[in-house]
């Protein structure tokens, strides 16, 4: 297998830290060079912090595994400097279609509107994603990856964590201020620490078959309930780069996974689905069961869990890796402020508060999709099939058809870091939501709203006519820029010429004003992870300072 991809081999290299009797110190160590560990490392690197990533292997993901990456994940990866290659290589898509007994019954469009820098979704084999992220890490001096460095023990000693590591040259130890654990669903560090991950195991088996074929189906997600070629079960068809197609077959609990993995058993299933005449080659196959579960707490002292190591969902809805990227996105700026002494450790606890909440939403949606796809009782099956039958004619039933609610950005509307609205706004972008993207014109030409955000907080100040900004307002904004917590005021204007003294962007198509409900004078406080912390109808410096302190646990 693997006709389309040659995995890179990353050589083990002995490091200077591997000297007997010495424990070298690194401020931040990350366990796992999968998508989430790499994202955490890259995020630290782009924010100017050193990060050391340890991985027990010497290559990227074996098999395509996670293939669907959401707009939000790509926005995060774009901030980290590696979304471009992924989007270029990936297959962009936004439409999903659901079939029942071979008839189209429902469909969705995840991004019906234009004016966003990233597509709704791309499909890309996980190994490409990881390879591009490793390449990006190579461009950042502060990020180091040590391959074939397997963590064998973790011990918290006061304000530090001592990590024992096995290598081809034997063992050594390191100490760190913070340990991020992103070593996947079967996290060995989690086991070493005697921590559990509780939830539901589903009694069903699914076969993934990646096949290479030349087919001119549109790049859409096709989900079939009870198709004639695979009666009583469901299937999924999805395209990947290199003419690879992801086929997913629900098998039922009684099937033998070892038998089902054999090519002689896979090929008839593929032929039944794609037709006898279709020519194809088998690229990769896997039989899996799945669980919906999470750790009770994501932080244990100075050890912080992220991605699948902290929470695991069923694959329906692509809520695994896509939520993991939101974990690291949420965590790294907080760690930076804490490590710089600009925020107390409660800010790290807010990572748990926000991402445990998000994990619960992901678990709920993934569990619901699974219950719809694999009904657990006769009455449940009857409701499912009644919904699908009514969906042929009725809009409300189409909306109930659940083949997976695809990953959406967390709306942290209950977060203690938010400042609740005091002024009325007419926009779904509530405090806690991710700021909406939109095309803008900045000093470097045409760009995107999301790309304005660097590692500082941003105060977006909307104004109709940039020429009419008063000296007093400029003075207020420049005083805010001198806050201890780094904050950048940014003028978002519709017309006129902004004064040189302040960073400004032109809302060239008026889409920012529209999506934010940003009227003349409206101000939006944006966190470094692009989530909205607070919004006002007019500038009030005291309110901004208070919101900034609230968003950093500095009250």
């Amino acid at each position, binding site marked *: 297998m693997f006709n389309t991809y040659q995995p890179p081999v990353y050589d083990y290299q002995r490091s200077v830290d591997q000297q007997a009797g010495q424990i070298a110190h690194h401020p931040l160590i990350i366990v796992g060079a999968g998508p989430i560990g790499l994202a955490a490392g890259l995020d630290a690197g782009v924010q100017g912090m050193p990060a050391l990533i340890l991985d027990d292997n010497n290559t990227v993901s074996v098999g395509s595994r996670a293939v669907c990456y959401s707009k939000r994940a790509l926005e995060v990866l774009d901030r980290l400097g590696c979304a471009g290659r992924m989007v270029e290589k990936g297959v962009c898509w936004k439409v999903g279609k659901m079939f029942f007994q071979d008839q189209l019954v429902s469909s969705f469009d995840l991004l019906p509107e234009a004016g966003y820098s990233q597509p709704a979704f791309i499909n890309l084999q996980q190994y490409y994603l990881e390879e591009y992220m490793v390449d990006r890490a190579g461009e950042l001096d502060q990020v180091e990856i040590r391959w074939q460095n397997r963590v064998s023990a973790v011990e918290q000693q006061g304000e530090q964590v001592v990590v024992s590591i096995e290598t081809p040259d034997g063992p050594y130890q390191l100490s760190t201020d913070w340990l991020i654990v992103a070593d996947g669903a079967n996290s060995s560090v989690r086991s070493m620490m005697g921590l559990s991950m509780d939830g539901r195991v589903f009694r069903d088996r699914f076969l993934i078959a990646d096949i290479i074929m030349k087919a001119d189906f549109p790049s859409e997600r096709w989900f079939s309930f009870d198709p004639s070629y695979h009666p009583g079960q469901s299937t999924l068809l999805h395209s990947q780069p290199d003419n690879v197609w992801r086929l997913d077959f629900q098998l039922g609990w009684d099937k033998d996974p070892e038998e089902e993995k054999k090519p002689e058993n896979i090929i008839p299933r593929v032929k039944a689905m794609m037709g006898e005449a279709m020519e194809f080659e088998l690229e990769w196959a896997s039989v899996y069961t799945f669980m919906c579960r999470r750790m009770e707490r994501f932080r244990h002292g100075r050890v912080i869990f992220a991605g699948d190591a902290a929470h695991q969902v069923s694959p329906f809805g692509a809520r695994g890796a896509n939520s993991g990227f939101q974990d690291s996105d949420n965590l790294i700026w907080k760690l930076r402020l804490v490590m710089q002494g600009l925020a107390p450790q409660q800010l790290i606890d807010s990572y748990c508060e926000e991402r445990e909440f998000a994990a619960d939403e992901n678990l709920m949606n993934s569990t619901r999709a699974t219950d*719809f796809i694999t009904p657990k009782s*006769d*009455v449940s099956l009857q409701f499912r099939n009644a919904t699908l039958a009514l969906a042929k*004619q009725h809009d409300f039933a189409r909306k109930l058809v*659940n083949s997976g609610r695809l990953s959406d950005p967390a709306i942290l509307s209950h977060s203690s870091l938010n400042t609740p609205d005091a002024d009325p706004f007419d926009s779904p972008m509530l405090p806690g939501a991710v700021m909406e993207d939109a095309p803008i014109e900045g000093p470097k030409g045409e760009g995107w709203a999301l790309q304005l955000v660097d590692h500082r907080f941003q105060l977006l100040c909307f104004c109709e006519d940039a020429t009419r900004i008063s000296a007093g307002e400029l003075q207020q904004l420049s005083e805010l820029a001198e806050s201890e917590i780094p904050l950048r005021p940014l003028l978002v204007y519709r017309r006129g010429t902004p004064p040189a003294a302040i960073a400004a962007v032109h809302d060239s198509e008026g889409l920012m004003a529209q999506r934010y409900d940003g009227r003349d004078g409206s101000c939006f406080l944006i966190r470094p992870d692009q989530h909205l912390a607070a919004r006002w109808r007019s500038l009030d410096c005291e309110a901004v300072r208070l919101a900034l302190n609230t968003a950093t646990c500095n009250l």
Partner: protein
Amino acid sequence: MTASDKTSGKLNTEANFHHAGEPVTRPYRAGDDLYEALIDSHQGLSDEQSQMLNARLILLLANHIGDLAVLRQALAAARESI
């Protein structure tokens, strides 16, 4: 349901599940909440008991709707191509 729907006596088959007074942040959420509650309500029941639950539920909802013109359309739509 709007006032005009109430007087028009037409069966609403557009998506209508909602949490009264709450902003809609996920378009699928209220429908999925209903679906889960529906399946959960049958938890631990025998087939016969489930049928009884469904029958009672239909009667309760039918009374809530009240308008016989709407209910007859719903009955016809439910019976179609069974």
